[in-house]
């Protein structure tokens, strides 16, 4: 069907989103930078003390890393480097932060997207099933089960799963993705952490509740009744407002939580992702890595919001119309 999509308002909204993204990243970087430098301890005490006690050498290293300058100046120079595509070098390894992050963020993306899919695969059918109100007892039981699962702390769940499936039954390999290159069953390494994060990230119950409420509201709308009266499928008519919009909303809202859960899961499963790197970098006070990870994470979170906006744009004709006025 040929729609008359007017591109002008869409471009307007997208450019506004871009501006918001830039401001957001700027704000996030300022806040993280301040928090980092307010936090006790500094990289020098962690690395250098072991190697040298000579104050001259320490001062030289400090100058070398640029840590002797006035704080705002440090931030501005970091910002200047970022604008030139340079995320700096890791204090610990000395390698460029960007190269290090690209590798690990791929693993984190796999983990995040995979577990999001697992979450949706569990929660969406339950939500649809219980909004049908066909078998109230069964849907109540399923919902309760899902609530219990999402109330389980993810680190505990991770250790329990490792204990049961790899120690007791020896079904899954103990080591995970990073060491998968030589293994025979490649995907097995990915499966367990993804399922654990998908079940344990706490999003299942909220997606069920939100989707169920929205679906029931939409199914009782007049236009669904009218669609039924003309003999059309009520699912076809309720799909956009009843499923697509709530699911996108929840996915976009839950990405930060899943990234947070990823930090723990990556620790538990020894998954070479951003979360583990962030953990290590936080212990080491590796400022450039932490800043880089924060920017990456903020970017990922915002990508979710961005996708949500795009879905809204193409689903709800009124937004484009409003965008024209704005």
């Amino acid at each position, binding site marked *: 069907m040929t*729609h008359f999509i007017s591109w002008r308002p869409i471009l307007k909204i997208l450019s506004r989103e871009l501006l918001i993204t830039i401001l957001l990243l700027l704000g996030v970087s300022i806040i993280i930078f301040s928090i980092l430098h307010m936090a006790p301890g500094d990289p020098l005490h962690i690395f250098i003390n072991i190697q040298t006690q000579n104050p001259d050498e320490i001062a030289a290293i400090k100058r070398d890393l640029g840590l002797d300058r006035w704080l705002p100046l440090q931030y501005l120079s970091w910002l200047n480097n970022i604008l030139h595509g340079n995320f700096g070098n890791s204090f610990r390894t000395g390698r460029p932060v960007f190269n290090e992050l690209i590798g690990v963020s791929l693993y984190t993306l796999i983990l995040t997207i995979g577990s999001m899919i697992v979450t949706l695969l569990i929660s969406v059918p339950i939500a649809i099933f219980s909004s049908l109100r*066909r078998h109230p007892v069964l849907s109540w039981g399923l919902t309760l089960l899902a609530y219990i699962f999402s109330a389980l702390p993810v680190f505990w769940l991770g250790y329990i799963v490792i204990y049961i499936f790899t120690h007791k039954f020896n079904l899954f390999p103990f080591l995970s993705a990073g060491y998968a290159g030589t293994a025979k069953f490649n995907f097995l390494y990915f499966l367990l952490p993804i399922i654990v994060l998908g079940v344990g990230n706490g999003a299942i119950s909220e997606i069920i509740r939100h989707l169920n409420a929205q679906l029931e509201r939409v199914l009782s709308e*007049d236009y669904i009744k*009218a669609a039924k*009266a*003309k003999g059309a499928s009520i699912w076809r008519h309720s799909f956009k407002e009843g499923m697509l919009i709530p699911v996108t909303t929840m996915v976009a809202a839950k990405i930060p939580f899943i990234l947070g859960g990823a930090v723990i899961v990556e620790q538990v499963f020894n998954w070479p992702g951003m979360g583990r790197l962030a953990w290590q970098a936080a212990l080491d006070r590796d400022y450039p890595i932490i800043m880089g990870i924060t920017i990456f994470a903020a970017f990922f979170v915002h990508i979710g919001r961005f996708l949500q906006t795009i879905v809204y744009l193409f689903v709800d*004709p*009124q937004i484009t119309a409003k965008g024209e006025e704005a």
Partner: protein
Amino acid sequence: MAEDILRVEDLRTYFYSFTKEAFIRAVDGVSFNIKKGEVLGIVGESGCGKSITAQSIMGLITDGPGIITGNIFLNNNGNTVNLLDGLPDYASIKKKRKAIYEISKDVLGWQKRSETLMNGIRGMVISMIFQNPKSALNPFMPIGEQIAESIMLHKAIATKKEALSFAAAWLERVQIDSPNMRLYDYPFSLSGGMCQRIMIAMSLSSEPSLLIADEPTTGLDVTIQTKIIELLKKLKEELNLTILLITHDMGVIMQLADKIAVMYGGKIVEYGLKREIMDNDSFIRHPYTIALLNSLPTIEEIRAKERLRAIKGDVPDTITLYRGCRFYDRCTLKNDRIKNKCKESEPEMIEIGTGHLMRCWLAE
């Protein structure tokens, strides 16, 4: 005489209220029939069970605990089908203790059966237009697509392009300007009157035998109301439509209906041809009909800025079981002679003229 398109016999739709622990008898033993090319107007105040009657016919009542019984015979191209066929099989009444009965129902089974019965009937043989047309159209679909969907479901038209041109022709028929442009509009950019025209086009595009119009003019401006009524009138003459018109507006009934059923408290209190009921010479009318007619102001009264003569009191709740006439409290015509009778026992439908039935002790 023309054949019956729809014959409803003793339709009862009860809902169970958990808070009040009682049945709400929304529709309580309603019977009527519509012949081909006829317009039956069901009129009554809000809460009289008019819309529930229509929704029961369409099989749209699926929610909530309750009971539905009766027979709905629909003439589907010569074959008469009962839309509530086999319903008693899905419910059984067991006597538990003295005067305590347990009703067990297979709701899921009935819903499945109802869906198969209604399949090919909804939208095809019976179409429905709703009150608040703006909310009855899918806000996320261009209207052309919605009409085309209806056409493709019920007509032997396979391609979307063809269906869209068919839809445009129907838009023209309901007097919408530049129909080819409008096909791509979304409901939010159209006025309420336009949306109702589109609903009418959509429901008529499958050329149904029966059109149920559930308060088609409610929620529209007065000027738009007249236009919609005129449109329905014109289409009715062009297409020889059979319409079940549900409204609380006596003005709409006067203009469109051939036959009238006045509903009160879930029951039909007066039923007959419009010329019988509305005829000024007819000396017998149900007190409720008289009150409804009186509540319509005349032009002289509007000029004189008189107060509207609303019917005093409220519609009775349909939970309480009444021994006597349901209209008793609000009736202005009750006299000492029959007062006790009105209070004590409910009147039956009494035939007072050819095809003119009334539920009032005054008629005796």
